[in-house]
Structure formats: C-alpha cells, structure tokens
C-alpha cells in the first residue's frame, strides 16, 4: 500500500474510533452539524456559485434552484425533524406474549462512504451527508474529480464548518476510488452510472456492506394531446426547462426523450423550438444561461451520438457544436433509429429525440421494452391513461404534468428500480437509509408458559397449536381440561 493508502487506512481507523466514542449519536451533535451545513451554504453562496460556474458553466439561478436551495431545504427539514426521527416506534405485540413490549429503534450504521457525482456536485455530496449525519454516522465523502472546482471547495470548506473528526472529504480519481473500496464500510451511498455502480457493489459484497445506488436511465416524457392551448404551452415550457434548463440535460432526472402521437408531433416541435429561442436566445454561449458539457470526454461522447448518418439525418433543430467552449446547441431529433446509440444509451446531454407513435397508449409498451428509468414523465389530462401508466409501467417515480419537482418533495422517496438503482433518500428516507432499524422486545420473568418446554407431549403440542392461532379461549379450555384433543 502506498503512502496515500496508509493515510487512508489511518483515516478510516480514526473515524471508526471516533464513532465508537458515541459522540455522533447525540441529538445535540447531529443538530449542530446540520446547522453548520446551513451556515456553510448561507455564507458561501457566491463561492459555490462560482465553483459551479467553473465546473459546468452553471447559471447562478440554476445553481441555487438545483443545488444550494435544495441543500438548504434538506438541512432545515432534517434539523427540524431529526429528534422525531430518532425516536423509537412502538410495535404491537400479540397478547400471547403478554407481558411484553416491542419497539423499533433506529441506530447509526457507523462509518459510511458517499460517492458524489459531477453534475450536481454540491447537492449530491451534501444531501447524502445530511442524511448520514442525521442518522448519527461518521462520513467519508468522495466528490467527483470531474468537477474539480466543487471538489476543492468541499475539501477546503467542509472542515471549516463540520466536525473534522467525523466528516472527511477525500479527493481524487479512479485510483483513489479503488483504494477507498478496499476498506470495510458500514454503508456505501453511490450516485453515478450503472457501470461504476457494478464495481462499487461488487466491492461492497466482499464485506457484506449494504449499498444505495442512485443511478439514471432514459427518462421518457409521454406527451398526450392537450386540447387546452395554455395547458399545451405550459407543458412544452416545462419540457424545455427539464431538458435543457437542468445542466444542459446532464441530469439523472432530466427528460431523455419524448413520446408523442405522430399527428401532433409537428405542433409540439414548433412550440419546442419557440421556447428554446425564447429561453436561451440566439447567443447561447455568450448569454451563459445554459450549462456547458462537463468535459471533453463527454463532449465527444455526445458528438459521436450524432455521427451515425441516420441519426444525423433526423436532426430537425440545432446540432451545432462549439468544441472550444464545450457547448452543444439544444438539438431536437425526429424519430432517429431505435437501435442507434442515442436511443439505447442514456443521453445525458442536450439532445432530445422525439419518438412518434400512432396512439399515445403505445408509449407504455415502448417504455416497458426498455430498462426501468428513474422517472417517467407524462403530460396528460386523461385520468384513465394516468392510472394505466402508474399500473403498467415501472420506474423510480412517475410525475404527471410537470418535471423535476419530485426532487423537491421530501415526503416522496427518491430512488430507482432495476437499472436505475435501488434504495432511496430525501427527507426521512435519507435518515432511514443510513440507519439500522433495530427490533427490541421486552419481556418479564414472571408469568411463564410451561408448555414451552420439553419433555414434549400431546398436551403441550395442542397448547402450542392453539397458542399460535391466538385462540385464547381455546387455550383456557385446554388448560382447564375441557377441550377435546384433535
């Protein structure tokens, strides 16, 4: 193990020892740390916005809406609720076991590891940290090296606000990840791609470490015919906002592709173009409203999606690229080939395929023939269709007539299913995801039931049968010798 490796080993050991002192279990400690996160965000808004601009070209409003505001909301909610969450929940115990008391008591798992992602580098580091802290754990967070300014910010600033014995930031790339995964963790929380998730989970398996995997997928938006023009307009606005207005499409819950009935497709496309122009204007690079592509590697990946001649031929809007500024224009494609990479891989960029179907109900079959996405969006006023979508498709979540807002709803679990991941967080779910729910049963040493013990005989057997059926009356009769044996 090299020098860094030894350092890492020391770090993990120290964290374990600190956890054992029990300090992080106290409600005061947890609240202090959550308040510290709030202070960090309030006092560093400009610095964070700057780092986000540097890494992704994110506009300050996007930075606030998608990252800072979200962290603030989450920290405040946790601060207000943590004491309630920590309280044991009573469980009813059947009369048979009288006198007895049962409860479920949440306790921290111990030393947890959080892998953040590069597209929401602040939010996806701090939000899980909030969960881990509320649950009383000690934490190592590994920000993505593909967002270096934010990674640096976290490494420099977290120690200024949080208990450095309990929360540590480890920076680095793939090799550091490998090293980190060699250690035994009590939980791993991973946000990122399925490919890396497999590596993380395989590593976790060595130590039976529970994991939460927040992945992505091709999130479709079903666009049913909306007869009311203002509804139609609003739907298109929301779609544009959810495709390009969120990190230029580089978001796990961003809309990946659109499904629309053939006869309405041109109407939809025209309106999409109109709002793209309205929101982003003509000088998109200069106006700095749109995030840029994170780096050259992803830029090339996205350009390659368009290289396929059949795909290129389906471009009906945009398509221009600016390699120096890592900028790709909002691009719409109409019915690209379904076996092209743009329709088999998660796009994670500003390219929107519009897939036409004969009847909108066919969207269900289309979605079901593909891996389960993180979210399905559907714009429709048809209640029957809504019910069908919920009952017949499977995804992390479903959102009707809007986009992205499920992220802000902390009473809803946020997570995937199938290829889009497993486990969930946000609100109390964050607390739960970093807790062990310990069952506790209290009994007394008085009032004993003799038939529990050998030597066995017919009487005891019948007793136990009746007991298990909670047939208390029968039990009494049996004890009194009044019940016939079967």
């Amino acid at each position, binding site marked *: 193990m090299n020098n860094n490796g030894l350092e890492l080993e020391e770090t993990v050991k120290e964290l374990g020892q600190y956890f054992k002192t029990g300090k992080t279990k106290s409600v005061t400690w947890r609240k202090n740390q959550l308040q510290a996160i709030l202070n960090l965000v309030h006092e560093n808004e400009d610095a964070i916005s700057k780092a986000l601009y540097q890494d992704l070209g994110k506009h300050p409003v996007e930075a606030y809406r998608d990252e800072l505001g979200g962290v603030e909301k989450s920290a405040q909610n946790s601060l207000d609720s943590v004491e309630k969450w920590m309280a044991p929940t009573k469980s009813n115990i*059947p009369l048979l*076991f009288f006198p007895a008391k*049962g409860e479920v008591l949440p306790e921290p798992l111990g030393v947890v590891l959080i892998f953040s992602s590069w597209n929401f580098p602040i939010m996806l580091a701090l939000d899980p940290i909030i969960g881990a802290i509320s649950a009383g754990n000690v934490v190592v967070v590994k920000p993505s090296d593909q967002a270096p300014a934010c990674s640096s910010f976290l490494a420099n600033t977290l120690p200024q606000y949080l208990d450095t014995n309990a929360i540590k930031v480890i920076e680095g790339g793939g090799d550091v990840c490998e090293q980190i995964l060699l250690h035994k963790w009590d939980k791993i929380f991973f946000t990122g791609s399925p490919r890396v998730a497999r590596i993380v989970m395989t590593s976790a398996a060595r130590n039976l470490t529970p994991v939460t995997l927040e992945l992505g997928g091709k999130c479709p938006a079903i666009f049913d015919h909306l007869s009311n023009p203002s509804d139609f307009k609003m739907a298109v606005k929301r779609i544009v906002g959810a495709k390009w207005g969120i990190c230029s499409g580089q978001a796990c819950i961003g809309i990946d592709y659109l499904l629309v009935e053939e006869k309405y497709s041109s109407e939809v496309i025209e309106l999409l173009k109109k709002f793209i122009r309205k929101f982003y204007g003509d000088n998109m690079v200069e106006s700095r409203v749109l995030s840029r592509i994170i780096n050259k590697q992803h830029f090339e990946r996205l350009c390659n999606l368009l290289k396929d001649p059949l795909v290129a031929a389906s471009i009906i809007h945009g398509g221009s690229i600016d390699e120096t500024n890592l900028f790709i224009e909002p691009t719409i494609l109409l019915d690209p080939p379904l076996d092209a990479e743009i329709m088999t891989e998660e796009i994670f960029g500003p390219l929107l395929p519009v897939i036409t179907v004969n009847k909108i109900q066919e969207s269900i079959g289309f979605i079901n023939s593909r891996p389960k996405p993180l979210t399905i969006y559907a714009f429709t006023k048809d209640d029957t269709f809504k019910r069908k979508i919920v009952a017949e498709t499977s995804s992390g979540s479903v959102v009707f007539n809007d986009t992205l807002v499920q992220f*802000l*709803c902390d*009473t*809803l679990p946020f997570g995937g299913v199938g290829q889009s991941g497993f486990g*969930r967080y946000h609100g109390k779910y964050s607390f739960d995801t970093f807790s062990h729910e310990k069952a506790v049963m209290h009994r007394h040493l008085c009032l004993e039931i003799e038939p529990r013990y050998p*030597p066995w005989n017919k009487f*005891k057997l019948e007793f136990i049968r009746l007991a298990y059926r909670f047939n208390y009356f029968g039990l009494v009769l049996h004890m009194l010798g009044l019940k016939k044996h079967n």
Partner: protein
Amino acid sequence: MATSKVNKKVFDSEEALTTVKDLRTTFDSGKTRSYEWRISQLKALLELTEQKEQEIVKALCNDLDKPPLETVAYEISMLKNSCKTAIKELKHWMAPEKVKTSLTTFPSSAEIVSEPLGVVLVISAWNYPFLLSLDPVIGAIAAGNAVVLKPSELAPATSSLLTKLLAEYMDNSSIRVVEGAVDETSALLQQKWDKIFYTGNGKVARIVMAAAAKNLTPVVLELGGKSPVIVDSNSNINLQVATRRIIAGKWGCNNGQACISPDYIITTKDYAPKLVDSLKTELESFYGKNPLESKDLSRIVNSNHFARLSKLLDDDKVSGKTVYGGEKDESKLRISPTILLDVPRDSLIMNEEIFGPLLPIITVDKLEESFDVINSGPKPLAAYLFTNNKKLKEQFVKTISAGGLVINDTTLHLAVHTLPFGGVGDSGVGAYHGKFSFDAFSHKKAVLYRSFFGDASIRYPPYTKTKMRFLKALMTGGLLAIINAIFGKS
C-alpha cells in the same frame, strides 16, 4: 413418472435462463399483480401447510430428527400465521400511501404506490428448511412477484417435498422450485433477477451479493453471528425462568442450529456456578439423564457439521472447560447438550458461530464489561439480556448493535410480525416478517400529480434577480417569505 439417472436433466445455465424467461413472460402478462391471484396463492400455501402437516413433520424428521413438536411450533404454525397475516392485511398493504406535499410544489398531490419487483429468487437454508423457504415466498407472492425457490440440498427430504407440494398446490407458471447444490445455485445466480433473498452464512452471502452486483440486483441477506446472552447476577432475577428460556432458545431450537440461538453466555465470575447449576437442573428435567438419546432434540444435520462441532470441543484451548455433557455419538450424528465454563476469548469456539448444542460461558468481573466483549466482535443477529435492572436494560438497548434485541427472553421476536427481522453488519442486510416481507419484495414508486394551474415563471429563463428572490423564498421560506418576496422584500 419414472426418470432414469441417464435421462435426468442437468439444471445448468441454459435451464436457468429458460426458467427465468418463462417466469418473466408470466410476470409481464400481469397475472401475478392482481389481488385475486395473490390471495389465491397465499390460500394455497395455507392449505398445503394444513393438509400436509404429517408429511412435513416426516421430512423434517428425516433431515434433522427434528422433534414433531418443534416442527409444528416453529415451522408449520409460524408459517401458517405468516400466511394468515398476509391474507388478512394484503389489501391494506397493497393500497397506495398518500403523502403530504409542501408549499414548494403547490398545487400537487402525491402518493407512494407499491409494485412488484418482477422475478425474484429465494435461496433457503437447511435448519428450518420449510419455514425459511416458504416465509420469504409469502412475501414475494404478497408483493405480486414471480418466484424461484432454491431449497437447501442439506435438507433433501424437505427439498423434494417442497418441489412436490409446490407443483401440486401453486401456480406453476409463476412459482417454481429448483433443487440442487452448488452447480445449480451458480446457474441460477448467473441469471438476472429483480431481487435475491438469501438465508444462510456469510461466505455464500458474499458470493450471492457479488453475483447480484453484475445485474445491480438488490438483495436481502439473512445471516447469523454469535448471539450473546448476558445474565445479570445483581438484580434478583428468577433464575429458573431465565435458565429455561435460555435452554428453550438454545437446545429447544433445532439443538442450537438456529441463527438466533443463544450462542454464548456472559455473566460475572461469582454468578457463573449458580447459573451452571441451574442449567444442569433444567436440562435434566427437559431431556432426562441421557440427553444423547432424547427424542426431544434434533440431531446434527450432517457429518461435516458434526466434525466441525467436534473440532470446537477438541480445541486445546478449551480442554478441561466442559462442565456438563460433551458426549458424542458419530453414528447417530448426536452431541449431547454441552456447557463449557470460562473458555478463553481466542478459542475456536469463541471465534465462529457455533450453530450447535455447545454453550460456552464467559465470565467477567463487572457485568458492564460484557458490552465491550460483544461490541468488540461482529454485530450479531440477536442479543439477549436477563435482568430486572432498568438502567442496565437501557444501556443494553443503547449500546449493543445487533439485528434484534430481547430482554428477559430468547428468540421470541422471530414470532412477532410487527418487528422487522434481519441483521446488521455481518449478520445481514434487509429485514422481513409481516409487512416488512411485503416491503422487501416491493418497489415503492413515488407518484406526483401536478396540474397546469399556476406556473411559476421564475422557473424559466431569462433568469433575473427578481426571479432569484422568489425562488429562494419558495424553496426555503414559508408563506410569509413568499408574500414578502411578492412585495419586493427579500
């Protein structure tokens, strides 16, 4: 139908793939999602358990020499109760859960909808081969999944009985049994499952989880560990009752071959002799003077485990420590209830899960030291404390991390459906029983309904300072902040 050895099909990867494909076709048809289908299958399981009790008792006798009462109490009755609970509560479990939404997403309504994961794999264990096969299957069915059950090959009579009975009673297009050992299990693990539920040991669990990782399949791992019992000398406990409960949990549960059996005892030096005497007295009253012959004790499952347990007794470090029992009969795979006193912490018996009829007692000077002893090892599936001291109880609950804790009894929490049953750390991942079983095999889908009423232009570019102010108020402030924002204050 006679099948010769030559014609017997080997269950290999291809077979496994076909099985999964078949089940997936059934699942995709939507058949298993309906309430009616789920209830019919749960009722069929209940019928199977009620009608075939004698056969089940016989199979367990074959596999483990399990006393009929234990089979009825722990395998059959518990399974029946599990079925009945599921049948009674299913409608309620299946109903979507409405959740509150905040001002930030106003106007909206939201709910959490439970949906089946799809095609799931249940791998069972040999010690409660009937219960640990069908209890998870109840959860899988209740949640609307298609299931493959792989019973343990170390309990072959139960394994074939399950194959026969499930084929007879259950819907074969969605519920299948695959028998076999390592090869068959490996073939199954190569397939893509929507969930894998494994009961067994840590070594195989690692293999299962690594296989699951290839397809990002979520897992529940019900493992074990060394479940300790702390006996308090200072609070005037009813020693006879405590002893009986320890015995019931240890030798009364498959002769110590149970994941939540008391593994070892910790008590103070001065109290230990009293405890040992009490154990001896009660053991004799339960199993007589010749416990090696007692019909009320299961045998050791096979010669491998017999050898493993013998090795624990033959360890030099525990020589001379046996204070009761220690008799063995290899031909009958029997070991008598054995108590060892003051075994060293580095002995073999203190460094692996015993899973047998050997009970070591560790002594400490002060009872509080027992917490450190327990916490210095891997987290067990269960931990037990016998005391009347309220403070000690509180400290125990606060300090000891285990799957589940029971105070003043042993193992009973297994039978309580309102308590989640599962491990933590090395004792496992996930939990089940009651609604927890339903949840273990479900995906909880968040559904948010929004309308087109009231769109906030602050969401869209061009981004301005005013919009930023509104956004801040909306995200984190309450109603007052929003009103302030409207009036230009920030």
